[in-house]
């Protein structure tokens, strides 16, 4: 499993945990709201039930009150059976709830009216009708209520019953015993109260489509219930079944029932029924919505976390990459630094300050064959691409100048190399010079670089031709120029990072400031290092806080021949001259103050080369001269052996094999071997009909 998948899973894990947390919280909240709602529902239904109880109680009270109030008046009428109709009329009219009423007299109370007599009054709209309704087909004495009231002598509320002529209406009757002076029941007065409204009222303002209210008798029969549109018969039955338990609050899986029982006759039970799924349907829907919102939110969260993590990973990757690049740049900077000369002999000092980690400037110098080779260059652009090209140029310069002495020749080859495959069209301004320590001859060639300053009597620009930079045209010719330097003269080379340094006000440092600074340094007699550092300090001071925009390079080389020892001897091509050579060499070594061992080996190297020339330069019997020049500036010893003999290059001779044993060894060929082993360089040239052999050895 790769790491990106791993981190993706861990992010998913975080979101899943977040989801579980949020869901748990919402479930707890859901439960709380659920229970709050339940309490609320309980309270509300209890209130509704209480209010209903009040209303029913009020109706009952009113009916009972009506009965009591009219009873006296009614009793007055008992003497005249027919006038009772009138009394009933009043009685019924007195109470809007009462729809009808009659008085059932005990059998034969009015003998003239026969066994049964029941004057009855009823309302039909605004009109009240009266009639005697008892007969053989309507024998009230068989009616249990009648029997009950007669026997008990106490008023009683009947269970509700359907209206005879209108089955949608429901009635209940209040039966009141009418007693004579002796307390005997002589009749039962019934008031029929329409209780249809109770069911309507209970169910008129239900919150939920299937919740309903109902009223039951004390033995559990239905007094008033919901219309069939609101609740099915089975629902009603189910509710009635639950109510048998006499609990204030009961519930089944489907419904919950709240109830109160009236504290007075007829002790009806008023109940409110809720269908559970309905009550909490909204809440469930709400919960479901909430769940969906949360899931949506979490999905968005996951998406964002994922994106954030991805972008954070990108950022981390980028910063790691940056750190790696920085590390590599640091290494590159070190490498580039190490390519520059690290130590400076007296009279030479260079300084390179790249604008970035790595730069496209370079300078270099080294001594070879009594000459100082030096160069300064500036690759177009800055940063890594310039630095890479700079490294190439630097190596090329080292390689080419090992073989070629002429500055223009060096430039020519550098240019040809650079022009090959220079697709990026980068170019390099370059200045190469050589100073011959023994003659003070400066040779130089310029490839589009800033003219160096010459510090001698005063400070002036070196009259250098500009020429084209390197890498522009392969055919460019670089004119070589030369100048005789007097002892103490210096060349100050620089790149445009110096003259084009800006301070915050955008003003350039300029050549005149450099010249003035150099003039001061010259007047104060500063050495090479002090001079370069003072220019650097000046430009730094000038720039202030402004950022360095370009690489800044300076190189100062001084021609200082005060330490020179130069000696010369002409020898004839005779073996006898060799003792003169020995004396000459001994004297030279002494004057250069060479340490004895080094002196002896240098003497050996020179002697072998001179003996070679004396022995072989001229044909047998022909006289000739061999001139020996011994020079030293106390850094290097140089022997130059010149003869006018036949062209002969001793450096082309294959040296003897030093691993052979005694018998196989040739007697000759040892001399040139010793010379080459001892000296740093042995070079041969044929000049103006002469063999010139130059031996050099660094003695520092």
């Amino acid at each position, binding site marked *: 499993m790769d790491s990106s998948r791993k981190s993706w899973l861990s992010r998913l894990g975080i979101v899943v945990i977040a989801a579980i947390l949020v869901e748990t919280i919402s479930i707890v909240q859901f439960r709380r709201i659920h229970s709050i709602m339940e309490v609320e529902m309980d309270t509300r239904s209890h209130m509704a039930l209480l209010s209903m109880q009040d209303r029913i109680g009020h109706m009952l009270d009113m009916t009972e009150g009506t009965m009591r109030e009219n009873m006296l008046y009614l009793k007055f009428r008992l003497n005249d059976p027919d006038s009772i109709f009138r009394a009933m009329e009043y009685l019924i009219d007195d109470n809007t709830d009462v729809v009808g009423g009659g008085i059932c007299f005990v059998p034969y109370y009015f003998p003239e009216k026969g066994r049964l007599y029941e004057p009855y009054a009823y309302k039909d709209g605004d009109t009240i009708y009266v009639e005697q309704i008892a007969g053989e087909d309507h024998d009230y004495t068989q009616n249990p209520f009648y029997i009950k009231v007669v026997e008990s002598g106490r008023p009683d509320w009947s269970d509700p019953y359907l209206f005879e002529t209108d089955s949608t209406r429901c009635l209940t009757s209040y039966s009141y015993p009418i007693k004579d002076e002796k307390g005997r029941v002589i009749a039962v007065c019934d008031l029929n109260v329409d209780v249809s409204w109770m069911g309507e009222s209970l169910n008129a303002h239900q919150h939920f489509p299937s919740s309903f209210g109902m009223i039951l008798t004390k033995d559990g029969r239905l007094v008033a219930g919901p219309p069939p549109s609101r609740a099915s018969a089975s629902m009603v039955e189910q509710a009635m079944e639950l109510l048998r338990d006499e609990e204030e609050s009961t519930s089944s899986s489907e419904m919950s029932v709240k109830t109160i029982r009236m504290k007075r006759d007829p002790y009806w039970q008023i109940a409110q029924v809720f269908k559970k799924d309905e009550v909490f349907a909204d809440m469930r829907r709400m919960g479901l919505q909430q769940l969906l919102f949360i899931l949506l939110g979490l999905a968005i969260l996951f998406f964002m976390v994922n994106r954030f993590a991805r972008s954070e990973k990108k950022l981390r990757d980028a910063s790691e990459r940056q750190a790696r690049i920085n590390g590599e740049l640091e290494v590159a900077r070190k490498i580039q630094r190490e390519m520059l000369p690290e130590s400076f002999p007296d009279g030479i000092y260079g300084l390179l300050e790249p604008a970035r980690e790595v730069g496209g400037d370079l300078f270099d110098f080294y001594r070879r064959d009594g000459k100082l080779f030096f160069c300064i260059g500036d690759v177009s652009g800055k940063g890594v691409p310039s630095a890479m090209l700079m490294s190439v140029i630097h190596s090329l310069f080292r390689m080419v100048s090992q073989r070629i002495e002429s500055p223009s020749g060096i430039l020519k080859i550098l240019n040809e190399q650079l022009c090959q495959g220079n697709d990026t069209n980068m170019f390099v301004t370059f200045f190469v010079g050589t100073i011959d320590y023994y003659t003070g001859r400066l040779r130089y060639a310029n490839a589009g670089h800033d003219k160096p300053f010459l510090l001698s009597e005063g400070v002036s620009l070196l009259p250098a031709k500009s020429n084209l930079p390197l890498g522009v045209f392969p055919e460019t010719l670089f004119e070589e120029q030369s100048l005789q330097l007097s002892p103490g003269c210096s060349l100050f080379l620089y790149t445009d990072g110096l003259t084009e340094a800006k301070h915050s006000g955008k003003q350039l440092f300029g050549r005149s400031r450099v010249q003035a600074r150099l003039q001061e340094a010259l007047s104060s007699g500063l050495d090479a290092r002090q001079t370069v550092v003072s220019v650097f300090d000046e430009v730094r001071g000038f720039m202030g806080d402004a950022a360095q925009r370009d690489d800044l390079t300076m190189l100062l080389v001084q021609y200082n021949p005060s330490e020179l020892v130069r000696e010369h001897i002409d020898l004839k091509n005779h*073996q006898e001259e*060799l*003792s003169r*050579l*020995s004396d000459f060499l001994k004297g030279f070594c002494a004057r250069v103050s060479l340490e*004895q*061992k080094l002196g*002896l*080996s240098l*003497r*050996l190297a020179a*002697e*072998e080369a001179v*003996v070679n020339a004396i022995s072989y330069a001229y044909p047998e019997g022909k006289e000739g001269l061999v001139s020996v020049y011994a020079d030293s500036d106390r850094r290097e010893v140089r022997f130059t052996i010149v003869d006018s003999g036949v062209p002969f290059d001793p450096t082309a001779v294959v040296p*003897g*094999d*030093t*691993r*052979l*044993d*005694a*018998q196989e*060894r040739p*007697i*000759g060929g*040892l*001399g040139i*071997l*010793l010379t080459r*082993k*001892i000296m740093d360089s042995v070079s041969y040239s044929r000049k103006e009909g002469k063999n010139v052999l130059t031996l050099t050895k660094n003695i520092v």
Partner: protein
Amino acid sequence: MKTSVQEIDGKLVATLCGELDTAAAQETEVALQPLLQSRGKDIVIDCTELEYIASSGLRLLLSVLKQAQSVGSHVSLKNVNEVVRDVLDLTGFVSIFIFE
């Protein structure tokens, strides 16, 4: 340059004194002639006072060594100073001579 050859304890001992440069090589070659008739005797070349040697001097030593080896005698160099030792080193002569 002074050169002498003596016979000590059945060995030919040549003492080289001074600088054996090319100028001195001819006279030294003459002085070392007795070594070329060693007739099987071992040769010791005492370099205690040899200050300098050039390739012509090395050639002399090589001639002596070749001659001696051809008649089965050994040549050893005695008390070689540092300068001379370096030259012998550079030319590979260190490997063909015996040093005492």
